[in-house]
């Protein structure tokens, strides 16, 4: 092999691996991206059962109830619209009524959002950016803030 052929070989190899990597990325992008919606968007976009997405908002006060041995049900709201969520398992330490939460899962046939993971942030004063944005979008940011302050008060 001449020097040129060798170099061409290495370039082809490099391009080949980059090509495979791009292919993998594009293929994975198609199916494995999860959208984030606020309750208002869920209602407006008419998202039906079976579509996986992340739902973010505030846990409505007084909405948390135990429905099964290890299953809870609560309402996620952006103060405009709300969605009922059911989750089996242990909620994160910072899951609290009146505070921000992000749940991932899909709407079931009965219209209840069945979450397989629930995230709450590890900072009491912190609201997930998506939730803050959704609240700002719905023009209820100030209320959300107040809600949080109240939440702090009651936590004590």
């Amino acid at each position, binding site marked *: *092999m001449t*020097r040129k052929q*060798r170099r061409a*070989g*290495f370039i082809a*190899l*490099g391009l080949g*691996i*980059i090509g*495979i*990597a791009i292919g*993998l*990325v594009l*293929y*994975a*992008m198609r*199916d*494995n*991206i*999860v*959208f*984030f*919606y606020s309750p208002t968007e869920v209602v407006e976009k008419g998202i039906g059962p079976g579509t996986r997405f*992340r739902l973010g908002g505030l846990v409505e006060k007084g909405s948390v*109830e*135990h429905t099964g*041995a*290890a299953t*809870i049900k609560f309402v996620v709201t952006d103060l405009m619209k709300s969605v009922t969520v059911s989750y*089996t*398992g*242990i*909620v*994160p*330490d*910072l899951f609290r009524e009146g505070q921000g939460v*992000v749940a*991932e899962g899909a709407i079931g046939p009965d219209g209840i959002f069945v979450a397989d993971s629930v*995230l709450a*942030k*590890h*900072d*009491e*004063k*912190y609201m*997930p*950016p*998506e939730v803050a*944005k959704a609240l700002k979008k719905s023009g209820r940011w100030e209320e959300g803030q107040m809600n949080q302050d109240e939440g*702090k008060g009651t*936590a*004590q």
Partner: protein
Amino acid sequence: MIVELGHFALVLALAVALLQMVVPMIGAQRRDPALMAVAAPAAVAQFVLIGIAFAALMHAFLTSDFSVALVMKNSHTAKPLIYKIAGVWGNHEGSMVLWVLILSLYGALVALFGGNLPDGLRARVLSVQALIGVAFLGFILFTSNPFIRLDPAPIEGNGLNPILQDPALAFHPPFLYAGYVGLSMAFSFAIAALIEGRVDASWARWVRPWTLAAWVPLTVGIAMGSWWAYYTLGWGGFWFWDPVENASLMPWLVATALLHSAIVAEKRGVLKSWTILLAIFAFSLSLVGTFLVRSGVLTSVHAFAVDPSRGIAILCILVFFIGGALTLYGWRAPVLKAEGLFAPLSREGALVMNNLLLAAAAAAVFIGTLYPLFLDAIGGPKITVGAPFFNMTFVPLMIPLFCLVPIGPLLKWKRSDLVAASERLMGAGVAVIIVIIAVLAFHSRGPWLAALGMGLATWLIAGAFFEVAWRIGLFSGNIRESFRRALRLPRASWGMALAHGGLGIAVAGIVGTTAWRQELVTALKVGDSAELAGYTLTLEKVGMRNGPNYEALVGVIRVTREGREVAVMLPEKRSFPVERQEKTEAAIRTTGFSDLYIVIGDENGQGGWTLRAYYNNLAPWIWAGGMIMAAGGIVSLTDRRYRIGAPNRARSRLAAQPAE
């Protein structure tokens, strides 16, 4: 008073860094030894000054001086001593001071131990290092000053986020930063080489130990972070493909590629400009990581709220360094010419493959981590890229890499043949087949992919073993001769075998945990039992316990197997009254081969307690493997060749010249 002294020391450090940035660079361009000689004492002085500032901050935390705003926000008198210390870097401002402290430490180490470097190169390296220091010291003093006072001083502080009150997390940031920031050394060397327009074997030989010195703590830091997430987040997982985790993984992947490409640049004089590019990217990704974690742009389990104006400042620093470095690279890299030739089937060829695959994997992680941010920035929909994306992109790139790892070191430089290498790996191949058959027999219904995964792990571990065995002639029959050869084998070879073997152990842990984990979510009343993986878990009672600065709900769970008691496990749910937060403490019982993992939740309103339990096969191997990899790095770092006998460049300059 001490606080003001610290503030003043930090301002002085900025002045010294400015001096260190400008004077030695001019000296190097003019070949003026007097000006170049400023670099080393300035680097040491900068380190001492930042050290004073850091000590002053530490003093404020230890004495709970709440007249300092930062201490008030992040500390409390009732906090245990270790977390008062960790509180210094458990917040934005303090962690940035730690960042520059480590940066200046590396600069001082080059000043003190870089005596074998040519004056010009050392002056330029320290000048570039000072440039980074100036940017970050400026950032601290103008946007994140940790020494701001409060008047009047409150009598009590707000406390530290309980999630950070954990021994592993207390020391996770210093390790991670030592790694992140350590990559600045490779960056400074790369920029200095581009300014000089020369990269030779000795350059590559100097860069390797510095990269290794950053890679080791980065590996430890990532392993610690993963371990912390495992036992503290209560999900029983070891890696969440969380953006903050990815931020540490990307520089690690590129640094690993850099370690390997520097070998080729040192031994064979090829891949020079690629090595420079990797050095630039490794540190650039560290800066990206700092930006992601510190700017608050991320949604993450680890992200803490910070002021967005700081994010913009870090973004400006980021653009300046990455853009500047790549521009310089585009302008100067064509000057660097390759010297050697090699066949595709050679050690160089294998290392090129290693680099391509690692770089492609880093790119895939980069896209997955930043695409959602990019989409959001241009006003697109909010999306999340989670574990499935990374499993589909990262894993397929790692499999061929892992197949290649044991083969590469057995190939010869320049040109090689597979026959000789495959003869030496016969033993490893047999081990792989035995393990695959054993796994299939043992887990007859188990996923067959898991059997292949365990086979791959065996390939790595046995490959590392047989490579060393071949080098010392272990199977030649003469034990004494083998022992003598083992003593003579360079430390770098031992280090490599340890690192590759450790990788295999980590892979085995990852495959084992992913394939055979068993999960149980249930609610138990006191006295009730549940079954998991052959264990019977009985909730004996639930009580309260007082900790130093928290109150804990403790579940007492008796674990039995076939009627015999195995353990009593005590998962806790701690409430921190000062911070008004709760924190889950999982109870983990490990046998070294598997973990039993129990988390207790709330009372479910019907007298039952929510419990989540996992049986994680081989989980401890993940972190053990990571630690062995880091140990391999340390062993390699002690190689004689890095300490003495470093080539004298002044003499080799003439020899290197005609090749350019």
